[in-house]
């Protein structure tokens, strides 16, 4: 199952540069885990970084620094120990959250402890993330969300279920990487709830469809 909706080029560039706010980077990583096409584009973005690194104007390293580097090599064991494989798996597995989300929400979709925030809408907010806001949302099947455009950056990835809007059909693995000008009104598909992970880059200042939906109901 290959995703049909991908990360925006500007988002990938920022991810490659280490400049994407932390919450958005978590969602981008979750999509990259599932999407070989975006991984290939990310390598292109990293190549730009490689060339910019080459272009840095510099002098020669000091003898002191060279000697310190060589001394470090002496302390190295001859063979490197194999590290544990990280929890990154490309295939979509039922119940399993993408590895990038494990530190924030655990690994099992079934084990999530949802909190009802509005009729048909449940949420879990990640705590302790430094840059931006990160949350899981579970929206009842067949729900129409009220909509609009917004100012900040927002990135949403579908984990289960689906929705449709003017941009098309969004299913598991797809990301909605919206810039401020797009207006949309997602309608979740019938059958199962739509579960997604959403990130915004502005902590405490709610913007975007997630917020506009919840704001009046929650009194943010």
């Amino acid at each position, binding site marked *: 199952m290959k995703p049909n909706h991908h990360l925006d080029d*500007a988002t990938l560039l920022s991810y490659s540069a280490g400049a994407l706010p932390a919450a958005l980077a978590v969602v981008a*990583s979750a999509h990259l*885990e599932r999407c070989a096409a975006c991984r290939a584009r990310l390598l292109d973005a*990293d190549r*730009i970084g490689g*060339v910019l*690194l080459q272009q840095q104007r510099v002098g020669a390293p000091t003898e002191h620094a060279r000697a310190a580097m060589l001394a470090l090599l002496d302390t190295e064991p001859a063979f490197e120990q194999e590290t544990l494989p990280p929890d990154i798996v490309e295939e979509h597995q039922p119940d399993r959250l993408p590895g990038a989300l494990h530190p924030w929400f655990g690994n099992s979709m079934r084990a999530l402890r949802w909190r009802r925030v509005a009729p048909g809408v449940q949420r879990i907010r990640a705590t302790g993330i430094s840059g931006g806001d990160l949350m899981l949302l579970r929206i009842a099947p067949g729900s129409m969300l009220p909509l609009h455009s917004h100012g900040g950056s927002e990135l949403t990835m579908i984990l289960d279920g689906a929705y449709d809007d003017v941009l098309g059909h969004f299913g598991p693995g797809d990301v909605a990487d919206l*810039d401020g000008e797009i207006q949309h009104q997602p309608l979740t598909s019938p059958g199962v709830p739509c579960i997604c992970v959403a990130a915004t880059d502005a902590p405490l200042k709610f913007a975007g469809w997630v917020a506009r939906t919840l704001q009046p109901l929650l009194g943010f």
Partner: protein
Amino acid sequence: MMGSDQAVAEVSSFRAKRHVPPSPSNPTPDALYWSAQMGAVSVKRDRASFMRIYDHFAPRLQRYLRNLGVPESMSDELVQEALLALWRKAATFDPARASLATWLYRVARNLYIDHVRREPHWLPIQEGLDRLEHAESARGDSQPESFVDQDILKQAIDRLPPVQAKLVRMCYLESKSHSEISAELAMPLGSVKSSLRRAFAKLQSNMRAPQ
């Protein structure tokens, strides 16, 4: 090094035409040269080759990290750590996948996010993504970075319109988010993103030169 350049010229005259050979005015060794040095590090654990890589890249990594605002003592440490990673993981370097400059850029960027931005989960995630990419490369699914592409990409970056060039540099060399760039330049967020999109499209088209 000259021998390697001639070998490329014999294989493909088209590539050779686009290739910029090292000369007194352009003394930077090319990706093919670094790939050979990495081979010696990996297979023979050759320290002289390692130090050639160190002498060239350590000051560049240092400058890159200092520009990102990393304090000097920490940047010294991170440069050592990046090159130690190179020494340890030389066998996993695949010149068909990425040039040494790209490889080291990733290592330094990852260390920056781990140590300076303090995102503790970034390194294992990047390692996981790297493994997926490695598997694709082994299956022949990925686009290799050819040795001449770097020169073409460098020229393409130099030819970017001034605004796009500025945004690309603020992004990569100052690690500024879209919102930060937007605020600093008093430029709408949408314009920042669309300029970066156009810049990336241009640079990418140069990486995919017609064969």
